[in-house]
């Protein structure tokens, strides 16, 4: 498949699409005019695909500086009668939540969809919060597709719903839906209106106490009306298999339930709630009356389970609700067919429902992700640790942030001691600086600095803090796949854009010490870090070197290889133990070797070898 097929594919054509790609097609079919995001896995590919296709589709797309701004861009577009789409990972919605609460009050004119990609089991996140709570917190309709086809179709439905009730709609996926691939049959495209007109109506769009009180009344009325729809919609379907057991489920969990009951031929009726908030009480009540026992299967929190209990309590029904709360199903983490099968076993009192899987396997070493060969972060970590040891600084604290460099938590770098969220490296450094006597060295990436690093930096200077901030500028948003950010001369649609200078921002914040280093120059970097560590106040060091994965980077010189001189190498393992580059290993003959196919010629190992046993060698030409 060519990525352009997502836009150019014709009605009735089928494509093998990722859930995230299907969301993009859904946006095109719905006639979305404005789309915005801050990259975050598991939602990142939506932005990557839009970045390629938005121009051709005639829609505006941006990588916003953070999720709050992304949501605000979309809200304003929707207030101007343009259909808008904003999407983010689950924790991104925390950042956007301040404005989300208000746009629920103001409502929208053009349709607005907020897609949140939750990450049960935390494949690439700091938590597994269940964003279905946000639908309840903001009082917004919630849709939960189970597969790529549904993602696309429900995107379209969401815009209709949003416009009919003038309310933003939340679409919740999870990793296994976002990163599930399946057959998607396309529908026709709708023309994207990119330009609207904002008609003023302060009573509606400016929530101050007097207007907000009325807005809240309106919101409650809207949700009451939408409840009728949620009870009647065909999105909430009963799979009647003549069973006496009833399962209520949604999203990815629905898939597991269906596979398990079909495979094991269980007497189970299933109520699939795709439109799950406002909770379709009437529909659930009718379903409950047809079954003897009920089980709620959902990822992550027992949200629908409690809703079902409320329905049961309200109507005085006597039925046991099985699920997370009575231990039938696990309370946390992603589910799977095996987990759901065990749940059925527990509920039905069948001791060993699943086949005997008592097979023993030999234990194997784990393989955690690590910084790539040639990664500039590794060099920066090496240099700062050296500088700290030269100065004999004791008990340094390393607040860190969200990005590839969080992998610095691993040995031997151990340069990550405290992490909360995007931008927290600097805010928590302020706290450590005031509440301890320990030296504080904190790390933040370039994209994360723009996202949430600037206000805490201003806070740090104003409140006279004492710490070193290292801005690891690798000229990309690396962890999520290399998206641009405001520090680069290109925007989300691939057009040239003004570069925002990190050093200028830092200076403007009143920082007294600012140096930019090339981390691949180890000695110089160590010297600068030593200076910064002795500075009285907040010192900023910008460690600037491009990520080895970005395409624009200098190509590897195939005529050069790194070589360990066997007569000089005494196998002291300084390189392996202090640098730990994945391209270096200890060979059978007790000498260090470099895997030339992995090596990126960063030259850092040459600089740190105490025996001067590593050199770069020209091959194929004169030596």
């Amino acid at each position, binding site marked *: 498949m060519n990525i352009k097929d997502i836009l150019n594919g014709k009605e009735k054509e089928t494509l093998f699409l990722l859930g995230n790609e299907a969301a993009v097609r859904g946006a095109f079919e719905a006639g979305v005019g404005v789309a915005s995001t801050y990259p975050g896995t598991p939602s990142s590919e939506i932005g990557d695909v839009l970045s390629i296709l938005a121009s051709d589709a005639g829609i505006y797309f941006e990588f916003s500086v953070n999720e709050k701004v992304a949501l605000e861009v979309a809200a304003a577009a929707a207030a101007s009668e343009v259909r808008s789409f904003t999407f983010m990972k689950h924790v991104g919605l925390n950042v956007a939540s301040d404005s989300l609460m208000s746009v629920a009050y103001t409502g929208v004119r053009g349709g607005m969809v907020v897609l949140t990609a939750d990450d049960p089991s935390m494949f690439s996140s700091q938590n597994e919060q269940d964003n279905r709570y946000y639908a309840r917190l903001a009082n917004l309709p919630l849709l939960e597709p189970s597969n790529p086809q549904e993602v696309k179709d429900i995107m379209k439905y969401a815009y209709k719903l949003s416009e009919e009730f003038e309310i933003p709609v939340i679409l919740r996926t999870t990793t296994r839906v976002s990163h599930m691939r399946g057959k998607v049959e396309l529908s026709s495209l709708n023309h994207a209106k990119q330009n609207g007109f904002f008609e003023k109506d302060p009573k509606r769009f400016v929530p101050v106490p007097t207007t907000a009180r009325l807005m809240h009344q309106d919101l409650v009325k809207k949700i009451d009306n939408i409840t009728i729809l949620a009870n009647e919609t065909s999105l909430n379907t009963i799979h009647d298999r003549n069973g006496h057991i009833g399962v209520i489920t949604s999203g990815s969990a629905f898939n597991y339930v269906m596979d398990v009951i079909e495979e094991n031929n269980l007497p189970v009726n299933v109520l699939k709630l795709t439109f799950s908030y406002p909770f379709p009480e009437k529909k659930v009540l009718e379903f409950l009356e047809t079954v003897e026992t009920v089980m709620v299967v959902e990822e992550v929190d027992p949200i629908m389970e409690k809703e079902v209990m409320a329905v049961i309590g309200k109507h005085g029904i006597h039925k046991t609700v099985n699920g997370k709360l009575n231990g039938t199903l696990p309370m946390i983490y992603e589910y799977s067919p095996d987990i759901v099968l065990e749940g059925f076993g527990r509920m039905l009192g069948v001791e060993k429902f699943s086949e005997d899987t008592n097979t023993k396997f030999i234990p*194997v070493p784990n393989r955690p992700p690590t910084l790539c060969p040639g990664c500039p972060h590794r060099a920066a970590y090496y240099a700062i640790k050296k500088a700290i040891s030269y100065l004999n600084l004791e008990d340094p604290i390393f607040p860190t942030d969200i990005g590839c460099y969080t992998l610095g938590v691993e040995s031997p770098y151990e340069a990550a001691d405290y992490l909360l969220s995007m931008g927290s490296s600097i805010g928590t450094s302020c706290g450590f600086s005031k509440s301890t006597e320990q030296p504080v060295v904190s790390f933040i990436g370039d994209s994360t600095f723009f996202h949430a690093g600037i206000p805490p930096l201003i806070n740090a200077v104003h409140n006279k803090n004492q710490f070193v901030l290292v801005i690891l500028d690798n000229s990309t948003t690396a962890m999520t796949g290399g998206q641009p950010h405001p520090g680069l001369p290109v925007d989300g649609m691939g057009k040239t854009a003004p570069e925002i200078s990190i050093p200028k921002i830092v200076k403007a914040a009143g920082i007294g010490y600012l140096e930019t280093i090339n981390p691949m120059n180890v000695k110089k970097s160590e010297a600068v870090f030593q200076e910064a560590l002795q500075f009285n106040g907040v010192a900023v060091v910008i460690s600037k070197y491009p990520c080895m994965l970005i395409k624009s980077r200098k190509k590897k010189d195939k005529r050069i290889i790194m070589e360990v001189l066997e007569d000089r190498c005494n196998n002291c393992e300084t390189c392996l133990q202090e640098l*730990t580059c994945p391209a270096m290993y200890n060979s059978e003959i007790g000498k260090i070797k470099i895997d030339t196919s992995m090596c990126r010629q960063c030259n850092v190992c040459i600089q740190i070898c105490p025996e001067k046993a590593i050199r770069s060698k020209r091959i194929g030409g004169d030596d």
Partner: protein
Amino acid sequence: MHPHNIYISGVGGQGIIKTSIIIGESAMKNGLPVVMSEIHGMSQRGGVVSTQLKIGSSYSPLIEEGRANLLLAFEPLEALRALSMINQESYVVMNTSPIYPFNLKESKYPYPDPKIILDELDKHAKKVITLDAEKIAKEAGHILSLNMVMLGGAITIPKFPLSEEIVMKSMKDNLPEKSITINLKAFNDGFNVCKAQFL
């Protein structure tokens, strides 16, 4: 009917997701229902990568433990790690060239000896097919064609639901034109090396 389940495992950067898309898309174009799961993000920085394909009737893309018909392992250690996915009727197609985890020095367990790996796989599978995909890929013209060597090997197992021609068509749809000759050679070489092990 039970779906034909393929579990693919290896290390980030080996082209596992592309391989899976080629299989999945050819199944879809051949009129077979297919779902697939892939993991993106942090796990790709030199960590374990796995995908799961279910060809045939299935709602979820996750394979139940012990239910993979084929374990396509791009790396020996990752073959061992995925052993719980197979049963005594399953086939394993494994690349024998290892990629050592960076933190092996601190690991509680050693990287197992190739003989131990093979014995362990033999114990749990119906048949284990091995090939040095790295060497075959390099000989075909580029190390990056390793994934197509593996794909060629995969389709040799009995009852693989897709024919050679269909998979090759899907390769042409999904790989850059400039590298297609190398990739097709890699695919054929992988196929031949594995096919011979069934004779």
